[in-house]
């Protein structure tokens, strides 16, 4: 990135102390401004028109402000660490934190947050005049904090991960963090107002940036490594709890279920693209194949196959059908690689879609009713559990989509298990070796063609499973759902999130599905933004939001400082993050 340096190191050296004071003051000013009215009218965001009673968003802003002040002030508190007592011992720990780096990150994040809030107020109420004095005070605080934090010298790199902490503390921290994430997510999702949703996203972004830069991220990931089972288990527990936060409303569950289906498919794609390095531009066909298989074998009156086995069997068949298609699509990899392979997969994807619309009885056998597809697919009924009904658990009604959400959660768990275990096995090493240097891999005895086929078939199988559930969630399957653009979306989820990681893909999938749902005002521009985002990501952050560290090195090999920094973090055998 060629951003011209305005704040030179000399400038930072000279204005270090004033900068710190400014950041501290800015943070406190912002915190105080939360008690003043920000908006002229209560209709904007979550009603910020009160004196002395901050709204939730204002409170979150104040929290960030205090955090900035504390973080900026830590440098003056730390010298006391040489004394004795419990507090100085805590401060010893704080010496390992990158407070200054955190302050800088928070300075940017805070300014972003306030900017989003104020712009949203102005847009929703019509004009800048609708921003009350409190809003301007907040902006002044944020600006002061931003400028101040820019003037600080970067300071030491954090090394919190080297702090020895008791196991119970780590486990509790992981659990608490995930619970906070759950509550934040539930709160954000319950906002129907685009501005509020975006403001909360900005808040989360600022907070996460701060936590990472301070070094707590390193500590957390080290803790997560040590208690991997706890981390995985509590992640799923938290996801499992999510429907209970919805007060029986299915609106968000519908979106959440679709996010899971989309993410499950994207994780499957990640095996092919992220691990084996084979670009697949027709991946949506596998989801479609699963969905069509399940639909033709469903209880729908439009289903064309008379055999109606139980859903578990249908799901397996759907997976196998997709896997077979995967084998067919993968077979050219014996001779074709690189860009050509991408084009072959794209062509296969188009062939799948056109063929499905042609299987209508007039241009081919009547298998899926052509472009009208198969509608009226009934709800699942597994072991007497009717997915279409509302089930009340602990007094909280859980609707249709919650039921499917739980099912998809189970499938997601399976897919994540498959992905991570394959990744850290002989097979996974083979895939990465193929991605790195196909010829060398072959010369080292890696079964290149077999592994490529396995990647295609395995990824396709997982997508087929997701497709089988999708048929029942959507209750109708049509070829128009499986167009090239959807493949591009899947790829974008993988690319934006981070190739080769599960967390990244989950995040990418969630954002791609959520943002258009919650930000209705960008709906008309969503494809435009999406296209631009893909270009910009490739230009500035090709490794994705949550990168696989291997990828960071691949894309930024010329940045020696970064390479060293990452290498230090690497565990002995590259145990990859999740």
């Amino acid at each position, binding site marked *: 990135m060629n951003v011209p340096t305005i704040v030179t190191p000399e400038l930072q050296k000279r204005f270090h102390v004033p900068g710190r004071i400014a950041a501290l003051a800015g943070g406190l000013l912002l915190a105080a401004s939360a008690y003043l009215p920000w908006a002229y009218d209560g209709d904007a965001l979550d009603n910020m028109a009160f004196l002395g009673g901050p709204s939730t968003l204002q409170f979150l802003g104040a929290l960030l402000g205090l955090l900035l002040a*504390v973080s900026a002030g830590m440098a003056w508190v730390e010298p006391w660490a040489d004394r004795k007592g419990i507090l100085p011992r805590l401060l010893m720990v704080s010496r390992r934190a990158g407070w200054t780096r955190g302050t800088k990150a928070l300075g940017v994040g805070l300014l972003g947050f306030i900017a989003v809030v104020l712009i949203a107020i102005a847009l929703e109420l019509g004009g800048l005049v609708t921003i009350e004095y409190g809003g301007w005070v907040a902006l002044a605080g944020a600006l002061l904090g931003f400028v101040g934090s820019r003037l600080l010298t970067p300071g030491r790199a954090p090394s919190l991960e080297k702090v020895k902490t008791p196991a119970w503390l780590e486990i509790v921290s992981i659990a608490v963090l995930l619970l906070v994430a759950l509550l934040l997510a539930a709160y954000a999702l319950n906002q129907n107002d685009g501005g509020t949703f975006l403001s909360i996203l900005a808040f989360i972004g600022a907070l996460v940036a701060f936590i990472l830069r301070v070094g707590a991220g390193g500590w957390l990931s080290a803790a997560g490594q040590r208690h991997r089972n706890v981390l995985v288990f509590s992640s799923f527990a938290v996801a499992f709890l999510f429907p209970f936060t919805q007060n029986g409303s299915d*609106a968000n569950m519908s979106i959440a279920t679709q996010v899971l289906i989309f993410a499950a498919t994207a994780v499957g794609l990640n095996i092919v693209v992220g691990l084996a390095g084979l670009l697949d531009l027709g991946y949506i066909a596998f989801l479609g194949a699963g969905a069509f298989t399940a639909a033709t074998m469903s209880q729908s009156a439009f289903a064309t196959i008379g055999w109606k086995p139980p859903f578990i069997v249908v799901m397996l068949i759907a997976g196998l059908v997709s896997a077979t298609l995967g084998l067919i699509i993968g077979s050219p990899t014996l001779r074709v690689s690189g860009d050509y392979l991408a084009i072959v997969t794209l062509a296969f994807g188009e062939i799948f879609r056109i063929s499905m619309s042609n299987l209508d009885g007039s241009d081919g056998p009547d298998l899926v009713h052509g*472009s*009208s597809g198969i509608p*009226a697919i009934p709800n699942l009924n597994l072991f007497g559990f009717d997915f279409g009904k509302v089930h009340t658990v602990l007094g909280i009604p859980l609707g249709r989509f919650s039921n499917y959400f739980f099912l998809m959660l189970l499938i997601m768990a399976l897919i994540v298990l498959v992905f991570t275990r394959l990744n850290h096995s002989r097979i996974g090493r083979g895939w990465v070796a193929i991605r790195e240097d196909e010829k060398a891999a072959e010369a080292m005895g890696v079964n290149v063609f077999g592994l490529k086929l396995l990647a295609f078939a395995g990824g396709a199988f997982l997508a087929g499973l997701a497709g089988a559930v999708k048929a029942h969630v959507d*209750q109708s399957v049509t070829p128009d759902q499986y167009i090239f653009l959807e493949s591009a979306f899947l790829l974008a989820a993988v690319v934006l999130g981070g190739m080769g990681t599960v967390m990244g893909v989950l995040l990418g999938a969630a954002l791609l599905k959520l943002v*258009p749902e919650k930000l209705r005002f960008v709906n*008309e521009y969503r494809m435009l933004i999406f296209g631009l985002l893909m270009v910009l990501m490739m230009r500035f952050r090709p490794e994705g939001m949550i990168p696989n560290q291997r990828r960071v090195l691949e894309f930024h090999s010329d940045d020696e400082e970064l390479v060293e920094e990452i290498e230090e973090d690497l565990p002995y055998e590259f145990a990859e993050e999740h």
Partner: protein
Amino acid sequence: MRNKKLLGGAVALLSASLLFAGCGSRAESSASATGGTATKTAKIGVIAPLTGDLAVMGLGIKNSVDLAIKQANESGAIPGWTLELAAEDDQATPDVGANAATKLAADDDVVAVVGTLNSGVAQPVQPILNSATIAMVSPANTSPNLTQGADLSNPTRTYPNYFRTCTTDAIQGPFAAQYLFESGIKKLAVVNDKKPYGQGLAEAVAAKFKELGGEVVADETVNKDDKDFSSVIDIIKSKSPEAVYFGTEFQLAGPMSKQMGDKGLNVPLMGGDGIYDAKFIELGGREKDLATSVGAPIETLESGKSFVESYKAAGFSDGYSAYGAYAYDAANAIIASLKQSLASASDAKSARQATIDGLSSVSFDGATGKVAFDEFGDAVTKTLTVYEVTDGAWVAKQTGELK
């Protein structure tokens, strides 16, 4: 010592701010915002593509429903209640449509929904609204399966909450075939674009035309993304038909007509209500091309004329488009039913079932003609009009009923 004080102060500040957040002066304010209104609120939802390629038609639907709701509120059609519009974008995509339906179903104020534009989107929306007993009236779905189930020879109603104000392929197609046959055409070529609307229509035309004793000399398809139809035209031309029926929308039909002319295939092209649009002529539709549209011509109907006038007067930025009038009728049908169902209801949610029941017996003269539903939820009106391109505009040629 001082350090502890300072830190203590910070902790105090933090907890104080937490306290403030918890108990502000906000509690009473929110109560006053909702209280005080004399009337109760019921919402009519709209699910249509409000963004993207098909937004023109979706916005026409939304605005027309909005118009009907405003008129009802102004005239006090339902005493004690205020109607509101809850419009959701389906982006012409089934997934998004399902999300929109779920969102509306979760809103206790919603009593009925007007939508969707695409049959493909209606498929996942139907069951979601049905399980929430919310009435759904579509202004534009033409697939017969939506009302009559998979087996059309043995029709069964799949979702009791579903109605539509437009006619299905099963009416419009045969009507077109009947018109063509009666005007002396014995050899017909049928083309469709492989989309549910076009394909259903073309198949219905071909079936009826054969039944009447005509000959279908060619049955071809085109790719909806194609611009070049010359291969298909040459195939058709070699069979020398007397007319071509093209099941599609104006985006493809206009260029097709133009290329037919260029190729010297000088026979009329006919289509359904999807090509009854001025854009068809702009894009190359030739003189003598034909289209069917449901109902009598809007100018000949008192109610139709008044719809057009009030739509213009309302000052919407987009036109009412192809399905505006149907959407207006759909909304008015819902409002007619609400008059009964809401009268005795304590809240909107409890009136949902009664609204569905009431819709079956609705009957009035709407913007597109008589509005009423049969036992499957289909519009009873079988009146259609054939339009012909004359001097660069669509002119009504013949209004009639399917025999």
